[in-house]
């Protein structure tokens, strides 16, 4: 089995325009990614390494541009690790339902600008969306819209297949 976290980090490096790909190892049964840092101790964990890459690429706005949005970004980064990884079929319905309510009035997770939270949540939720029927995609209409926007955002998708999203509703009478 290929390690998803390593593929996500490789895609993130490309999105950030980092020229020289890093070499990662993994740790423990859960294959937690590890980055051997030249000038310090090794960095452990997807989110920790991802935040480090963003700083290396000098894109601090991807971690939020105000105190409030920085906190929101961290909250969704933690959510992606704790709730999306090892998500059962039952959990996934709760995740989609909650996220659908949250995204009702938002284009991006932390408001009106794209952040690292959108990128990692997109990678993390991809397998869940892949399993949805057309009708379910419409049921979670706000998640679907956000997902489709991120998957077409320039150079984020890389290692993942495009998921087909209808752009007009067909089950229009259905309440969401």
């Amino acid at each position, binding site marked *: 089995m290929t390690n998803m976290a390593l593929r996500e980090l490789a895609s993130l490096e490309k999105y950030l325009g980092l020229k020289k790909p890093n070499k990662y190892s993994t740790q423990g049964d859960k294959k937690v990614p590890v980055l051997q840092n030249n000038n310090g101790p090794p960095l452990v964990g997807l989110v920790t390494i991802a935040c480090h890459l963003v700083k290396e690429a000098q894109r601090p706005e991807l971690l939020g541009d105000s105190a409030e949005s920085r906190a929101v970004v961290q909250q969704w980064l933690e959510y992606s690790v704790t709730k999306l990884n090892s998500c059962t079929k039952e959990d996934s319905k709760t995740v989609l339902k909650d996220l659908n309510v949250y995204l*009702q*009035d938002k*284009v991006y997770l932390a408001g009106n600008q794209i952040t690292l939270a959108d990128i990692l949540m997109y990678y993390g939720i991809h397998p869940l969306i892949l399993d949805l029927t057309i009708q379910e995609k419409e049921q979670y209409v706000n998640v*679907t819209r956000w997902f489709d926007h991120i998957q*077409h*955002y320039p150079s984020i998708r890389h290692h993942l297949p495009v998921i087909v*999203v*209808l752009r007009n*509703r067909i089950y*229009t009478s259905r309440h969401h």
Partner: protein
Amino acid sequence: MALNLTINTSNPPLGALLAAEHVKSSVQVSVEEGKDTQLLVSDSVQFSDSNSICRYLARVAPAVGLYGANMMEQTEVDHWLEFSARRLCGQPGLNITLGELNKALSLRTFLVGHALTLADLSVWAALKGHNEWPIQGESFSHVNRWFSFLSSQVPFTSVGKKYTTKKA
């Protein structure tokens, strides 16, 4: 080639002003305040209708992508330009129109394709200038999200601030 846009300050053409802001990196457009809205292309060619001005600006700056990425998107953009001119500008009773717009926006971040086009500029401008909009907006969550998302982006913030405070 320098273009000159004169705007009627008592009824500023927000869509045309936004289009001018978006294309200014590739085309030289100067904006002047005056009595009638008009885009001066040359001595013999002028456009006075906001949609015509938008279309012209989008076409002389194809790299900006305001007219969509293909023929299908171009047709969709035309649809929304007509929609904003006929169904939004100065029309009372926005309920049905907003309902349609709301449905169209439920699965879309932008009206056409995956990026900003004239469709967004023109519909946003028509709503911004409509006095029923802020009150009606509450009940149309998708239109609301789309509208406030655009309102938070440059140059919507600057154009919105500069040209709508003058209106009573």
